[in-house]
């Protein structure tokens, strides 16, 4: 499963993968952009941990910044900041929110 995630993550790095119009994986959000969590790619321990930290469907996540080497990422969830590896963020599908909605 881990290997699979890694694979996804690599695919995600090369080009933003558009799942549907206006949808991205969390790792492809640009700093400052906000997205609403709509679904997850897969289950397992990482998903569970995301859940523990409150990353679940319907939540709004803001990409705060990337680490200097572009991995991990810093996100803002309900005012709390969380750091997450790119490969982990690739599990989360988000719907990009326009600035007006934010």
């Amino acid at each position, binding site marked *: *499963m*881990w290997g699979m995630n890694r694979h996804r993550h690599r695919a995600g790095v090369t080009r933003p993968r558009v799942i549907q119009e206006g949808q991205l994986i969390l790792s492809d959000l640009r700093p400052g952009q906000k997205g609403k969590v709509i679904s997850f790619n897969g*289950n*397992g*321990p*990482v*998903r*569970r*941990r*995301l*859940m*523990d*930290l*409150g*990353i*679940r*469907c319907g939540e709004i996540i803001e990409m*705060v*910044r*990337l*680490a*200097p*080497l*572009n*991995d*991990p990422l*810093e996100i*803002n969830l*309900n*005012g*709390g*900041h*969380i*750091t*997450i*590896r790119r490969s*982990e963020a690739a599990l989360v599908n988000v719907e990009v929110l326009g600035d007006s909605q934010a």
Partner: protein
Amino acid sequence: MTDAKKIKIALAGNPNSGKTSIFNALTGAHQKVANFPGVTVEKRIGHRRFNGYDITLVDLPGTYSLTAYSPDEKVAREFILEEKPDVVINVIDSGSLERSLYLTTQLIEMGVDLVVDLNMWDEICEAGIEIDVDKLSLLLGAPVVKTIGSRGQGVESLLESALVLAQNGQKIHHHPPVSYGPALDDLVNQLSGCVSACSGCSGCGQPRWLAVKLLEGDQEIKNKVLVPGNGVRELHETLDKSLAHLKKTTRDDPEIIVSEGRYGYVAGIIREVLKRPLTDRMRISTQADNILTHRLLGYPIFFIIMWLIFEATFVLGQYPMDWIDSGVGWLQAAVAGILPATIWSNLIVDGIIGGVGSVIVFLPNIVILFLGIALLEDSGYMARAAFLMDRLMHFLGLHGKSFIPMLMGFGCSVPGIMAARTLESPRDRILTILLVPLMSCSARLPVYLLFAGAFFGATAGTVIFSMYLIGIIAAIAMARILQKTILPTETTPFVMELPPYRMPTGKSILIHMWDRSKLYLHKMGGVILIASVVLWALGYFPRKTEFSIAYDTRIAQLQSGATESGDAADMAGEIARLENLKSAEELEYSYIGRLGEAIDPFVSPLGFNWQMGVALVPGFIAKEVVVSSLGVLYQMGETEDIGGLIEVLRHPEEGITPLAAYAYMIFVLLYTPCIATVVVIRKEIGWKWMWFSTVMQLILAWGGAFIIYQGGKLLGWG
């Protein structure tokens, strides 16, 4: 007072909830650190007398949940289930109420007597966040207390609430059941009915909680509950039916569905009790991070901070270390002057006093390093350090936080290995600890200085630098190999909080430093001392009585001036020469010397002569002892001045080539860490890994030196 009633209170809460500051405020310095049985998870226990009660406080590891997946969560859960504390205080960071209540609901379901502690109350007041405490208490069915742990405010009322609860138990509070929404609640209710009726389940915990865990597919609870007995068949059937139903109606894992339900319940509470303004409580922290984790400035600032801690630990720490050194030296001389020269005086002076010295000499390093680490952790910068370094350390299969122990390894492996305690995952800790000794510590430098000085002249600096580089390369290689073999990359997620920056408090930092120093002296000091005495004995016995020359007689003759006299200076020189010859013969004759000679066949393919081989054995005491042992073996005495030794080594008669010298430096870099390091590894991660580390490094050292020496000879460099 013997009539004091005993009460056990456990502290549970998320990481970064300020649980430790509450614990410190409650217990002061009356605490000790141990490990939970069988795992490398720290258990902090403290005591407090309060209103005639004798209270034992246990600080459980910080967790977000109570599943059986991570050792931390397992330990916390087992403690609550098995040890049944009278009261659990749930410490909550008031600023992240929603996430915290996720754990709270699980504690409620487990049926513990709960006091909810809204910690860091001052922060939400400043941020303008409002929490309706009375309503929260009503909804949770538990007393709620506001505290400011860093200032110790509110901890008395926390204890009072806990005592009231311990006396009256569930009678005064009723926890409304956690609701997962109508669909799931039905399943939970059915299952919980079956659990109550099932004989195997009695005593395992609250039926409702067990039912939820069974739905989640918690393997440990399954093993515990689904044992042969009355009603277990019904339970099995109901469980299978419920799971099949869930599978039909949703596409998520049951675990996730339960989780969602729990969050739904928490969200309901939050709506009723929390008023959040639009301001971001992370505003100041975010501004600070704009600089501290900036794309360009982040690394330079990080390295400056690391450099400061490193310098403070090892350069500033050098002063007290020198004082300890000279103090021990003075004491040794004083005792040697008082006692008559026998085996016993030698044991006391060189064995025991020397051994104690070798234990406390690390103390300044440990105190200063853990001061630095406490500052990093309490201020919130440690999480940023992990954020910055994770990409690089992840390449080695490690966590961003592994960087600090590795860096400290360049100063000394002992504090470096202890610093690995900041890592939560046991697997990351083991891998980090195995790699730390490969970082070239400062005790190896004197050996490099000697051999590079003797054989590489102008390029000595580059040669020494290459040692540090080779250590890092060896660590990378080892990490890659271990990761592919016995320590596979875990699926443990990296995801973690970046807490807001906070001003560390003096008290918590002092307690942290005190903890570590006590831990070191208490748990490791004794073993290091014993090991030092054993090593002393191996170097002292068996006593040689017959020497090639009757040194003592000659020296006595010289001293009494009974021989044909030269001038006084000549005579003193002659005495020193004879004493050096004598100690060289003694060392050769001792067990250590014999062991050294026994390993000669193993080290001669590496181009080492017998003196170099023998000197490696006492190098196990501390790697810089290689130099003083060579001094003794070359009849120079334990000289501080390596100039003379350099001359001797360089002498063509010795047959040491620069290639062999380089191979020797590689060997000293990589071989078995010193006794103190080995003891600390044993204490931190156990016998198995201690042996693994020792043998692995011996193989690494021999292999490395062999490749360099024989390969170099093939290429015609020898």
